[in-house]
């Protein structure tokens, strides 16, 4: 592997060898559990294959079937894009707002921070169960409280119009998770900048838009990508609560993928499905990345714009 003619000292060769030994658990895992599976998924997406029999090469047929013969595919795409469009902006905006609140210097702030982060650690099925109970149309606490205000609450998960917003509000409940990350970003802004701005006579609003927001943009950018990927991957809520209903309103893409791949075992077709999602996620990430040079502020870029 490492050859003499590269002109390395024996010590450097030994160090390189130790380096490869130390990362070998990851490398082996990467090859067997990530690299080969991903290549296989690409190959299987061009085959007719149902897990037990041998895959048969059928070219683009899975993709043609996906785009032209499967109304379920369009329902899944529709539900997922609506969900991303609905939840992503709200999660970002409320995450930043919450982090601004949590950045205030008042007594007992640690208590609030601890509290707001709780929903972020109890994800999974339990959170879905809790919300199924909270949003029960007749006996749920939310509709009960609404009825005290004289509002007739909707049927939430059981109404085709309200099911998506219900899932979205569940994800909004977990907003504390990203708020603490923005908070870390806020606390990384050097206080001298604020001082200098104040001495120059800048008002609070001006400071917010000229210092806080620009210096938060790198964190915002990174979170935008992470939250977007998370939103595309919405699954557990729909699997546990709605099973994709009512009227396929919450029939998210990964639910479709799960049903095709692991219930009907149309594994070849499901491979094509998941690759399409990955391509969409990559394109969206690239698009966000492309816009980043217009709005993400990096230090050393030159101070004024």
């Amino acid at each position, binding site marked *: 592997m490492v050859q003499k003619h590269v002109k390395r000292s024996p010590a450097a060769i030994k*160090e390189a060898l130790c380096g490869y030994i130390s990362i070998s658990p990851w490398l082996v895992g990467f090859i067997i559990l990530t690299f080969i599976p991903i290549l296989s998924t690409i190959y299987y997406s061009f085959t007719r294959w149902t897990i037990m029999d041998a895959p048969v090469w059928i070219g683009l047929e899975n993709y043609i079937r996906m785009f032209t013969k499967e109304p379920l595919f369009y329902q899944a795409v529709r539900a997922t894009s609506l969900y991303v469009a609905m939840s992503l902006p709200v999660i970002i905006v409320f995450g930043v707002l919450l982090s601004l609140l949590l950045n205030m210097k008042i007594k007992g702030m640690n208590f*609030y921070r601890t509290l707001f982060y709780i929903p972020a650690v*109890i994800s999974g099925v339990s959170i879905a169960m809790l919300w199924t109970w909270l949003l029960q149309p007749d006996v749920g606490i939310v509709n009960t409280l609404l009825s005290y205000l004289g509002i007739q609450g909707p049927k939430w998960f059981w109404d085709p119009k309200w099911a998506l917003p219900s899932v979205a509000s569940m994800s909004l409940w977990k907003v504390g998770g990203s708020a603490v990350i923005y908070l870390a970003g806020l606390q990384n802004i050097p206080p001298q900048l604020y001082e200098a701005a104040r001495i120059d006579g800048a008002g609070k609003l001006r400071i917010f838009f000229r210092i806080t927001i620009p210096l938060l943009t790198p964190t915002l950018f990174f979170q935008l990508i992470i939250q977007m990927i998370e939103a595309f991957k919405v699954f557990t809520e729909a699997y546990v609560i709605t099973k994709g209903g009512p009227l396929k309103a919450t029939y998210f893409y990964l639910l479709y993928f799960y049903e095709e791949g692991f219930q009907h075992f149309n594994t070849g077709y499901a491979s094509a499905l998941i690759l399409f999602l990955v391509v969409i996620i990559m394109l969206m990430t690239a698009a966000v990345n492309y816009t980043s040079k217009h709005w993400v502020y990096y230090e050393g870029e030159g101070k004024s714009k």
Partner: protein
Amino acid sequence: MNNAITIANVRKKYRQKKMLVSVLTHLFMISLSMIFLVPILWMFSTAIKSRWDIFLWPPEFFPKVWQWVNFRDVFTRVPMLRFIGNTFFIIVIKTIGELLAVPLIAYGFARLRFPGKNALFMLVISTMMIPLQTKLIPLYSMYVRIGLIDTYWPLILPAFSGTPFFIFLLIQYMKTMPRDLDDAAKIDGLGTFGILYRILLPLCIPALTIIVTYTFLWTWNEFLQPLIYLNTYEKFTIQMGLEMFKGIWSVEWNLLMAATLATMAPVLIMYFFAQKRLIGGIASVGMKG
């Protein structure tokens, strides 16, 4: 004299105004807290109600009779303890795997020089972004072929090759440690791996606790992978067990909430003990790309 009184007055007014702002802020924060607190309290309230009390109108926050027996029912009517035990077993094995693999891998990336390191590091980072589902079908078919379906192997094996997030976390942590440490240890005659295990690792304990905590948290909450790999219900994890209850006790919300609460309790307890570390850990990685 007159002047002094005015200044005192101004100070008093200022203090009063400050006080008012502080009270209003707290009022606002407390009412905001309710959005996060009420659902959890309501879950608790439901979990100790009788099956008639949950449908009472108007609903009571504190039922007249606290029916603790619900929790006993949850544990006796379904093998809840077994699900918890299964999950803990997986957590312990995965933790061992992560603790064996991650420090070694992170050390290689943080401290040793070898050709191709930067490219490989980029791979570690990019694998964090790849949705698990992309590799699920080939992995499933591989495990079917070698007969590991309905065992815990598919769930625990990846831990022994290190979770990319943890590798990244520990690399960042090791990079903050001065290189002089390594040099001093080298002079004292420690070998390459001696430096890792004798010198660096003890200093990494804060980062390692983050890894242990997150392994616990994520494994406890994991749903999709157990759902796919496990078939026999004696082998179910806690989240799968909870999902199963939903089918058994469709409208007995007191039992369902007792089960949900029992499922959340270990995570909540751990969160309160480790919250500073948890939040600090996620924040340090979440900020940089």
